[in-house]
């Protein structure tokens, strides 16, 4: 069990990642060229920026004057090169002033919290309320047109917003558990800040610097445009735009190089900031996770064979899923995560879809309602609900099925309610999605539904954040019941809840199911929950169904080695103090699915035959199906 191989080593450096992005490289190079050219102006400028030549007034670009000349015949390129010195120096001054104030205050406020944090936040409030322009102009008036002082004051005044940004980053990092672990280990605070907090800040810092530099350049050139800063004839970028503006009727060309250099520099800074931000975001995410599949692996997951007969009659089924394949990613190059799933649900039946993470159980459930999101899609297969084919149905047609035919409740009750609307209005909205309801009858329907989930009707006036997780899940169930669905898909409905609340929700679901005769597909990783509610269990592993059987039989005599091993690793049946039986190895990711049995590598019963070819689902008697060719050996071992 070594680390998931295959991935190229992660480098923590932001720079190498930025350099891997075309836009990052281009904007970085452009910026570098501009900065170097401006610094080296005395060396490379073709002419003296102040040298007038009345014979060459207002010429367009030519070999002698690459960017033309201005109204006094001065070389525009040379003036831009020299003029940039003042502008870029101003940007650096403002950025430094901002950093000197914002970084320490942001870090201190975020890391220490408490009273320090509150004081710093007050200071920030003040800084954000002061009109920066006026102070900057006042500073210019007072300090005799000094651009240096003006730009420093720009940096100081802007620091408020950046203190907030840095503080929130540090605040987030401070709550990370590894900070607590380091503290427990006796690592002292300055070292924690230096080693664990500041590295997390670095990326955000770079992004903010580039964005602020872009904004500052606008202000600096703007001030020069308004004739602050060095007086003529000294060249400045802003001043040159002003000169061009006064000649707009005669020589519009001059606006292009003068505005252009500012725009290009700003653009380069913004794009570099974007590239740094992207690089920073992907830095800590696993480079080659489930995505990206080699062509060989793509072939390996070709559909094994035509869908096998299930051994159960599909004629009377409420829901019949055949050969369902779901992929994520670009069309034609999807990563298939659900691979040929068959599933039947009879009217009023409660089917448990059980498996560990990566088994594809949740994706299967979501695809039933066409709710895979922008990235995922059904690649192949059929979903028939009540005789109607759902795959390929238009969104409008699907909408008629959603809520009224099939409804859903999901894992995290608190985030499955819209925080901005009262509970009652959300239930009413669902209730009136499929039939017109007047105001009064909508309210009556809401009361009725709340009572059905054993909540007081007064809950209708509450907002989601005012109710507990258990109540929120009851509300979610009420919303699901609003359209009187014939099938409810419950995706880990109790995983986020405490056990006592979980028991109540399970009781509620059982009661509703018995009263209404609604069928339920219960997705869960918890065998106890499956045992509590379901009449049949469908076990999934690595994107496939591996076993399907009545729930008692599943627990009493598993017919697939994975089911058996998983059940055994549950501490409930173990002898305290003895090691728990484990499976060993890991669930293969979609890119690593083998040609043969996907569990073979971890299976105690596996033979060469298991690894040769795709294993079909086989009828193993008593209405049971198993994707195993070693059922006989398994049966002997269990007996």
């Amino acid at each position, binding site marked *: 069990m070594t680390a998931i191989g295959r991935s190229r080593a*992660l480098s923590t450096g932001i720079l190498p990642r930025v350099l891997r992005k075309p836009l990052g490289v281009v904007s970085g190079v452009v910026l570098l060229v501009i900065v170097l050219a401006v610094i080296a102006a005395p060396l490379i400028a073709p002419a003296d920026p102040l040298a007038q030549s009345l014979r060459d007034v207002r010429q367009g670009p030519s070999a002698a004057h690459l960017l033309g000349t201005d109204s006094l015949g001065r070389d525009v390129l040379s003036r831009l090169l020299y003029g940039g010195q003042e502008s870029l120096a101003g940007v650096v001054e403002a950025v430094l002033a901002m950093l000197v104030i914002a970084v320490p205050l942001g870090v201190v406020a975020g890391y220490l919290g408490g009273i320090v944090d509150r004081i710093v936040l007050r200071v920030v409030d003040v800084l954000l309320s002061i009109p920066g322009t006026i102070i900057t102009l006042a500073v210019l008036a007072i300090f005799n047109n000094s651009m240096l002082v003006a730009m420093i004051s720009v940096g100081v005044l802007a620091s408020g917003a950046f203190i907030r940004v840095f503080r929130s980053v540090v605040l987030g990092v401070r709550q990370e558990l590894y900070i607590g672990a380091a503290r427990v280990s*006796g690592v002292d605070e300055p070292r924690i800040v230096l080693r664990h907090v500041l590295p997390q800040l670095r990326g955000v810092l770079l992004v903010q610097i580039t964005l602020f530099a872009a904004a500052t350049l606008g202000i600096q050139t703007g001030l020069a445009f308004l004739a602050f800063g060095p007086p003529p004839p000294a060249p400045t970028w802003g001043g040159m735009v002003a000169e061009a503006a006064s000649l707009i009727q005669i020589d519009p060309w001059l606006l292009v190089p003068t505005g252009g250099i500012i725009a290009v520099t700003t653009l380069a800074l913004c794009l570099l900031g974007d590239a740094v931000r992207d690089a920073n975001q992907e830095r800590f995410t696993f480079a080659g996770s489930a995505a990206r599949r080699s062509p060989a692996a793509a072939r390996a997951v070709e559909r094994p064979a035509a869908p096998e007969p299930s051994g159960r009659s599909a004629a009377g089924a409420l829901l019949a899923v055949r050969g369902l394949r779901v992929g994520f990613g670009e069309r034609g190059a999807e990563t298939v995560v659900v691979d040929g799933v068959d599933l039947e649900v009879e009217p009023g039946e409660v089917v448990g879809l059980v498996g*560990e993470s990566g088994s594809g159980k949740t994706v299967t459930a979501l695809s039933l309602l066409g709710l895979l999101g922008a990235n995922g899609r059904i690649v192949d297969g059929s979903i028939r609900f009540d005789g109607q084919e759902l795959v390929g149905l238009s969104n409008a047609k699907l909408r008629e099925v959603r809520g009224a035919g099939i409804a859903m409740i999901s894992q995290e009750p608190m985030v499955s309610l819209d925080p901005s609307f009262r509970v009652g209005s959300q239930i009413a909205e669902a209730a009136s999605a499929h039939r017109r309801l007047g105001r009064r009858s909508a309210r009556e329907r809401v009361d009725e539904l709340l009572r059905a989930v054993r909540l007081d009707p007064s809950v209708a006036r509450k907002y989601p954040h005012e109710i507990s997780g258990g109540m929120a899940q009851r509300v979610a169930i009420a919303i699901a019941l609003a359209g009187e669905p014939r099938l409810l898909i419950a995706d880990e409905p109790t995983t986020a809840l405490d056990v006592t609340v979980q028991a109540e929700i399970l009781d509620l679901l059982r009661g509703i199911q018995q009263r209404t005769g609604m069928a339920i597909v219960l997705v869960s990783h918890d065998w106890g929950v499956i045992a509590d509610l379901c009449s049949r269990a469908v076990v999934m592993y690595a994107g496939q169904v591996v076993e399907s059987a009545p729930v008692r039989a599943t627990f009493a005599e598993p017919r697939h080695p994975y089911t058996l091993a998983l059940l055994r*690793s549950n501490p409930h049946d173990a002898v305290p103090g003895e090691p728990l039986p484990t499976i060993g190895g890991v669930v293969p990711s979609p890119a690593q699915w083998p040609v043969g049995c996907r569990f073979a590598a971890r299976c105690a019963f596996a033979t060469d035959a298991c690894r040769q070819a795709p294993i079909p689902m086989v009828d193993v008697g008593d209405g049971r199906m198993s994707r195993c060719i070693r059922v006989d050996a398994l049966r002997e071992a269990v007996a």
Partner: protein
Amino acid sequence: MTEQPQEPLLSVTGLAVDYGTGRRRARVVEGVDLAIPPGRTLGLVGESGSGKSTIGKAVLGLVPIAAGSVVFEGRDVARLSGRERRALGARRQVVFQDPYSSLDPTKTIGYTLAEPCVNRPAGERMTRQQIADRMGSLLGRVGLGPDAAHRYPAQFSGGQRQRIAIARSLMLSPRLVVCDEPVSALDLSVQAEVLNLLAEVQRDLGLSLLFISHDLTVVRHISHEIVVLRGGRVVERGPAERVYEYPEDPYTQSLLASAPVPDPDEQQLRRDARRALAEQEG
């Protein structure tokens, strides 16, 4: 390690912890007593809001104590100087719940493992070679190859990260490890592996564990003694077997009856038992 066996390694008496300040101040733990003898595991069970994690943090010195005392190796932790408290890091360690937040994503596994070993007080200082050796042997012990030291957390699965977190907690040969819901974010098969690993290192190294979990079944499996919490107070305590098989407190009984078991028939019995309990309480 040759103190009298009776002397508990950790004893908590009358512990109270407050959260928030001013008007929003609220007591989340009140009057909790705990004792863990060397080499034993104490299971701390409760639902959300029971204060179980807060007790763990108080034992680790991560939250201030409002009342009571935490005595570790015979010394009151609250009265230690900063230097002494830092030195304590060597003998008292932690494994957290969330395997994704408990390792710094910007640092290699090697850095994370070595960090507790640098800047130790004189006398405990380890050479570079000693640190590397220990790292190698611990990585092997938790079932990872030595090359893991050069990788970043993002390259490991949840179960592997939890193994790394366990390896980190063992770097300084601690005597007590606080495990705060160490398996609740893991899949069943991975949970079994991590539980086995914890039990194994405890037995081999003579560790004491404070094992915090919401799952009575898991706690029963790994603990010698169980303490059940509700609303920041202890409602029941006793040997693991006794508390699990014959719970006395009604809350423990309902907690146990509420946890679904992987057996449809037994689950049916539990459901009936829970209904009876509920009717009893009215």
